[in-house]
């Protein structure tokens, strides 16, 4: 098939309009892009699954007052087994919020 034939079969506006969308009434409002409403929530739902003291998988972060720039660098680049997260998952503002939140917590004495 050539590209011109592809263009000939291009009909998304028509189809999109004709599809049944009755379920939309029950759509649950989702998180907006990579924006998290608070650093505490982001830590609870993502970072803390590895980094909380009782988990012991990732490096302890609580109370370490890590600069937001450093946290941003690690979140975007990953580090060894830590995955990298794009802005669609966690945006820059949310990283700043979680860095602030972590700095506000008590320092944990024991490193995993």
């Amino acid at each position, binding site marked *: *098939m050539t590209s011109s034939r592809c263009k000939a079969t291009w009909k*998304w506006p028509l189809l999109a309009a004709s599809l049944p969308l009755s*379920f939309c009434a029950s759509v649950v409002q989702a998180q907006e892009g990579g924006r998290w409403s608070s650093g505490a929530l982001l830590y609870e739902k993502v970072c803390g699954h590895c980094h909380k003291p009782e988990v012991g998988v990732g490096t302890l972060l609580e109370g370490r007052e890590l600069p937001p720039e450093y946290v941003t660098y690690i979140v975007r680049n990953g580090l060894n*087994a830590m995955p990298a997260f794009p802005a669609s998952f966690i945006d820059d503002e949310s990283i700043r919020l979680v860095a602030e939140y972590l700095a506000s917590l008590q320092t944990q004495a024991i490193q995993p």
Partner: protein
Amino acid sequence: MAQQNNPVLPRGVTQATFEKALEAFRALLGEENVLAQPSQLTPYSKVMMSVENDAHAPSAALTVSSVEQVQGVVRICNEHKIPIWPISTGRNFGYGSAAPVQRGQVILDLKKMNRILKVDPDMCYALVEPGVTYQQLYDYIEENNLPLMLSFPAPSAIASPLGNIMDRGVGYTPYGEHFMMQCGMEVVLANGDIYRTGMGGVKGSNTWQIFKWGFGPTLDGMFTQANYGIVTKIGFWLMPKPPVFKPFEVIFENEEDIVDIVEMLRPLRISGTIPNSVVIANVLWEAGSANVRRQTYTTESGHTPDEILKKIQRDTGMGAWNLYAALYGTQEQVDADWKIVSEAFKRLGKGRIVTQEEAGDKQPFKYRAQLMSGVPNLQEFGLYNWRGGGGSMWFAPVSEARGSECEKQARLAKRILHKHGLDYVAEFIVGPRDMHHVVDVLFDRTNPEETARADACFNELLDEFEKEGYAVYRVNTRFQERVARSYGTVKRDVEHAIKRALDPNNILAPGRSGIDLHTYNKV
């Protein structure tokens, strides 16, 4: 944008054409959703495989928020012959993460499409978009106090149900074979058409997530582990939350016990007495996920000697094999099944049963019980700390659920891994008739010499297993073409015939599962 800002280009695409495509993408999606700066692409480039990130570097990434935008993207890709690599959340760690199968492909990031479209507590199903995570869905179910239970893989909290189902991933509950529980999908085809499988094409239908098959050919499976369309909605069935959940572990002391374990287990699985995807984890899987680190026992390079594995067993009480399973139902049902199961283990004459009451909050029992009851966690990522350095590739051959076969595969894998100075870190999972034999090839990716060994090891695992008639059910993006060859030319001919029909411009993830009109020359 200047040429130096696009050091990576899609295969066969000139800088000028790429610029035109980027302009069109910006017009469609807005500047902020077209990512082409190296710093913006870094998060999409990190892999855990035995190659440099650069080998799988994308040329750009697009973030989209609607089906209409996905349609617009494929229109532009057709016009400029731009290959795209769709991801839902890109959390397929050890299988390629978010990075494309071929360097230069443009990532189509669907994370912003993250609406839970429907959860029906009566019919027990969900319909979600690609960017929804298991954690998001779990929170929705909890907040609304719905009597439903999720099934997910170990990276549950941050992974996407759609992505996991599309890669035919597995979980740990009675609904653990995830693709078996899928019901209805919406696919944007390469020509922009929107195709809904099963009952989804019937105007006014309310059975899209109820009845899988619809009428005529049933094509859902064709879109999994494939590159024939971009799935923008997926339905799947949810298990009713049982009134009683009883997880348990059985600890076996010796490696050779795997034969008896599997033989004893198979009838219990096939009869449904044990309903969930049972896991049989070896000592290093068990130790790693409980935060035991190799450096505690040795700093020598190479594989970890068996004497050390025995010492870990003595120190921790872990077995050479550690079986995790659970019973679900009313108290009466669970009591009756527990009698059958516990007596079967007693008759076996080996294995030490541990119940939740005995284990308490001890790891890894705790996270295993959470996985078997649909509670998200990431505890299993402790595996990556066993050796450290961020290298991980899943080698996942399929085995009969027959003791002699599982033992044969375990011995073969261990021998090859040890030859390359790496450890056998493995579990058998799912059943009832098959076992996914999942081996985590862990290596220090910061060490080039060890990374090269891991690469050679993975190749040898594929080669030697193939000689015995074994093949993997899933593989990372470095070895997709290699594994496709294991499944024969007729299958590949059919797959490419479908590709020519549905995606003649080869724009959708060329190279996925070895399907690529550009490189597959057989006519």
